[in-house]
């Protein structure tokens, strides 16, 4: 198929502004600003069924409609923190198709009445930010950003901001704290950012991929967008495929594409002829899907969308599909994920801060073969007692792989832990 988001795969030089323009670039922005009312755009996005691509899958248009009309300024903040292990799609969009992304951010600014948009990139994306800054300067030069756009009263300015190495800054309220020059720790919610956001003002926060869809939706309308994907999960999605597959990479496919198609058709199957053992469809935060002889077909035929992945005991999340083959044991996998969460827990709340420390003690001991099944059970209860008690979702995320690994792959633990 042709791409909506990864258009550079079809038009390699699209990151050149002239090439972008020759291929319809900025026409959506112009249409939005000159021929549409902000409310109309919000309605169109609602109708398109576009759901947030940052992980939670919240309907984008609905989120926009929460901004109060009585308090100004409004801000748009684009979440380009992309730190979930196994996710690398936003980076490709920003590197290779930057103008479409920036056009999307500008459209969202207009739609929600914001004159300023911040793009919060993880600190590691330093070159990407440099590149975006150059693109923004080019757009300003050519009149696609700045004041009196297309002869209207509308002003829109975009700015990049670099984080400095903290996964938690992908959580939207932690991101705002960080952008305000504070430690990136989540805020209490409510109030939600739509009401009290950046600098205490109403703020829309959307993921890079989410916003990159907007030029297409404005151009083709909600119906045009709905020709891809499913009824409840319309549109295409970039699946970041990594791990033990022959051809890892980003694949933009309609929502509802099966695991089989992604892993075997596009990903070229499992490396070294090994057997598929487990899938983490939402990065390190996944509930791990077990794939064995009995479940293989059921899992492979599961459509990857916000609803159906639940049927195999997991969630789509940001669609960072990590494939694990049968040479790996789950005690190793969860030790890796807990190393990650222990490192990234912001430390603000007790269960996540102390729970991840405790879990890491246990996963290390188990993986090193120094544990008994009693320790494995303890690990499971520690995860269970953290779940649902944390201040933000990171704490819950950290327990997912642990609990499902212990539950669904008992033999891996019996093997290393022996029987007590």
């Amino acid at each position, binding site marked *: 198929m042709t791409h909506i988001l990864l258009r550079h795969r079809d038009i390699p030089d699209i990151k050149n502004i002239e090439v972008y323009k020759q291929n319809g670039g900025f026409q959506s922005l112009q249409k939005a600003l000159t021929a549409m009312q902000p409310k109309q755009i919000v309605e169109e996005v609602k109708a398109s069924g576009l759901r947030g691509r940052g992980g939670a899958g919240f309907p984008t248009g609905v989120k926009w409609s929460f901004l109060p009309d009585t308090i100004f300024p409004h801000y748009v903040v684009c979440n380009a923190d*992309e*730190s*979930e*292990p*196994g*996710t*690398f799609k*936003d*980076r490709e969009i920003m590197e290779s198709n930057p103008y479409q992304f920036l056009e999307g951010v500008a459209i969202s600014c207009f739609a929600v009445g914001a004159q300023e948009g911040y793009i919060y990139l*993880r*600190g*590691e*994306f*330093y*070159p990407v930010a440099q590149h975006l800054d150059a693109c923004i300067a080019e757009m300003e030069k050519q009149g696609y950003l700045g004041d009196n756009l297309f002869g209207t009263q509308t002003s829109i300015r975009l*700015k990049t*901001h*670099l*984080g*400095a*190495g*903290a*996964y938690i800054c992908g959580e939207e309220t932690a991101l705002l704290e*960080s*952008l*305000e*020059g*504070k*430690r*990136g720790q989540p805020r209490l919610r409510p109030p939600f950012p739509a009401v009290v956001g950046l*600098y205490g003002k109403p703020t829309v926060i959307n993921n890079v991929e989410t916003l990159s869809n907007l030029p297409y939706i404005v151009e083709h309308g909600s119906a045009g967008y709905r020709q891809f994907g499913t009824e409840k999960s319309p549109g295409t999605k970039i699946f*970041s*495929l*990594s*791990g*033990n597959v022959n051809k*890892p*990479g*980003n694949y933009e496919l309609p929502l509802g594409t099966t695991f089989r198609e992604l892993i075997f058709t596009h990903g070229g199957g499992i490396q070294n002829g090994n057997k598929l053992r487990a899938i*983490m469809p939402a990065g*390190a935060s996944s509930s791990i899907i077990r794939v064995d002889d009995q479940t293989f077909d059921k899992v492979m035929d599961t459509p990857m969308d916000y609803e159906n992945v639940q049927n195999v005991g997991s969630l789509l999340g940001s669609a*960072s599909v*990590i*494939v*694990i083959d049968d040479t*790996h044991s789950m005690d190793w*996998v969860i030790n*890796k*994920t807990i190393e*990650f969460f222990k*490192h*990234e827990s*912001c430390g603000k709340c007790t269960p996540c801060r102390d729970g991840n420390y405790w879990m890491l003690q246990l996963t290390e001991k188990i993986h090193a073969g120094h544990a008994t099944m009693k320790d494995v059970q303890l690990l499971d209860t520690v995860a269970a007692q953290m779940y649902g008690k944390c201040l933000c979702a990171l704490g819950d995320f950290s327990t997912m792989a642990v609990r499902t690994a212990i539950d669904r792959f008992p033999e891996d633990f019996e093997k290393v832990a022996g029987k007590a």
Partner: protein
Amino acid sequence: MSLTNQYPDEVQAIFAKYPSRRSAVMPLLYLAQREEGYIKKESMEEIAALLDLDTTEVAAIVGFYSMYHDEKAGKYRIQVCTDISCALRGADTFLEHLCDNIGIKVGETTPDGLVTIEEVKCLAGCDKAPMFQLQDGDKVSYHENMTVDKTMELVEALRKAQAQK
């Protein structure tokens, strides 16, 4: 040497970017890290004064984010991702061999002060493992689909460039 003397234009540009002064703290910390790869207490004090903050408030930021460093290390930091996706594609082995070849352990710096090797979490380069980022002061570059040989060539090139300075 103060930041405002050393980088007057950049400091102004940073201030111009945000409606609130405090937001400038992160970009200013990167500036402070540019030359020597770590942030000295004097820089924290200067930034605090510039932003009308207490030095402790600035230090709290330095401490929170893993890309800010408060201690001197190598001019370049090779930060290898060994997180789950990369590890599934051999990142741990890559790191081990790289350390053997360079002759230092993770966290250590070569005797000439050129490179420090560090292990980091996912860098969003999962499909091109093994990979690492090279942190040089406030700058970062990605090096993907790496082998130990290619990395050693890079280190040599850095060493040469450094010697020429």
